[in-house]
């Protein structure tokens, strides 16, 4: 069954959507969209370094994303504002990554595969890595769910209740780095943030609890990757952007329905 490239692609898409859903909710609640995007851009530098020294792309992406996210967190508030810092760090990382990749001779590297993903080329090994990543993110987020929610609402309340906000924030940063790394194959570093934010944002208009928002986001993400993948196959369009287009369609429909209903009531 796993021999079929469409089956592998579908399973990869489902995996990344599942991991992105609960995390995407936190990204939306905590207004970390720009942070997530910078983390994803940093991953491109990780990819370039991995290709240069010929080691695991996954490890390189996770490592560089984590280093970028941590240094930005440490520098935050010292001199520059967070979004400025993120803009500098994220964009210089992706630029440096692209420059480094251009130096690599011998192998012809398809840059687009890293920028917007190449889900149809997912191997069994990639699939395994994706699902291990999903497992890690799920365990982390479910284990820390309540403290993460509390820290999201108020770091001071969390401190007073005996939690360490820094530790909980690191759980988010680490999960983000992992989801970016496993998402490179599926939607690429440019679009992974879309897979985090759009399903969560769509779910917001119909959810009434944090948990239901996460579950609905997961359903929307999974439907988007299945529908996007199949339409890409049908119309011969790039897969990553097709998946994101379907997700945006969900967002548009749900927001419209929500506005329509609210006006009626």
């Amino acid at each position, binding site marked *: 069954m796993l021999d079929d490239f469409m089956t592998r692609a579908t399973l990869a898409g489902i995996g990344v959507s599942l991991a992105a859903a609960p995390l995407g909710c936190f990204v939306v609640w905590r207004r970390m969209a720009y942070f997530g995007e910078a983390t994803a851009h940093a991953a491109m530098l990780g990819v370039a370094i991995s290709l240069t020294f010929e080691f695991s792309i996954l490890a390189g992406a996770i490592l560089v994303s984590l280093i970028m996210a941590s240094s930005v967190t440490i520098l935050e508030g010292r001199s520059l504002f967070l979004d400025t810092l993120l803009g500098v760090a994220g964009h210089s990382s992706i630029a440096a990554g692209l420059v480094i990749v251009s130096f690599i001779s011998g192998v012809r590297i398809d840059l687009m595969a890293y920028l917007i993903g190449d889900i149809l080329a997912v191997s069994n090994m990639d699939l395994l890595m994706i699902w291990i990543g999903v497992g890690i993110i799920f365990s982390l987020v479910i284990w820390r769910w309540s403290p993460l929610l509390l820290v999201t*609402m108020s770091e001071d309340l969390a401190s007073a209740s005996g939690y360490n906000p820094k530790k909980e924030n690191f759980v988010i940063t680490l999960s983000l780095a992992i989801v970016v790394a496993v998402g490179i194959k599926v939607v690429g570093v440019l679009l992974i943030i879309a897979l985090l934010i759009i399903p969560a944002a769509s779910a917001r208009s119909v959810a009434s609890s944090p948990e239901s928002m996460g579950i609905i986001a997961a359903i929307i993400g999974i439907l988007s990757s299945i529908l996007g993948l199949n339409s890409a196959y049908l119309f011969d369009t790039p897969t990553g952007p097709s998946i994101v287009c379907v997700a945006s369609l969900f967002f548009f429909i749900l927001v419209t329905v929500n506005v329509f209903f609210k006006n009626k009531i």
Partner: protein
Amino acid sequence: MLIKISSLDVKYGYKTVLKNMNLTLDSGEIVTIVGPNGSGKTTLFKAIIGAIPISKGKIYTKPNLRIGYVPQQLKIDQTLPITVERFLKLAHKNFNKSLDKIEALLGSKDLLNIQVNNLSGGQMQRVLLARALINNPEILLLDEATRGLDQPGVASFYRKIENIRNSTNCAILMISHDLHVVMSSSDRVICVNGHICCEGAPESVATSPEYKALFGSDVDGTFALYRHHHDHKHDSKIER
């Protein structure tokens, strides 16, 4: 003794926000911190709950001290859907067992299914206080907890606080701008402006030159307001 703070300094970057703070708090005490805006009152609370690093001195807290903290305000992002019930559950592992208790603390169960984002100022204050009381705290930290309440609301809030103290012997440390009420319901008042200006029984603080310098030299309106409410203080004493 629940808390002992000795020669505490807190800095934000190069700016010293609190200098040489000393404070002890015992069970059943109601201690009020007054001081102008930016005088480091909230910073002191954040240091006590461990939310910010301290640059000098020591904060001793009784091991496993149960702290109930009511922040100045709680702004939850509009994108986060959460009901009051779920929010209160986050504070408490045995939530269902004491659902009755929470209803009692909230005053009703009407609020339980409302989204936290839709609460009014007064409702939010009730929810935050209920949340702080869920774990039977040994100390209650109230940071301007009466913000957004009207005059009768403020009065009944402080009656509630006194009742809590009387029934549970919980210590209460509060930051307040309601100088008139504070004076009548506190055991001790600490006047802070980056450091401790003066402290002691409410009467002695109110007449101390440091206190007068701090609040008397403030904007005229503040002083007038204080004067005005000061008249009412005697009324409320007679009531009791």
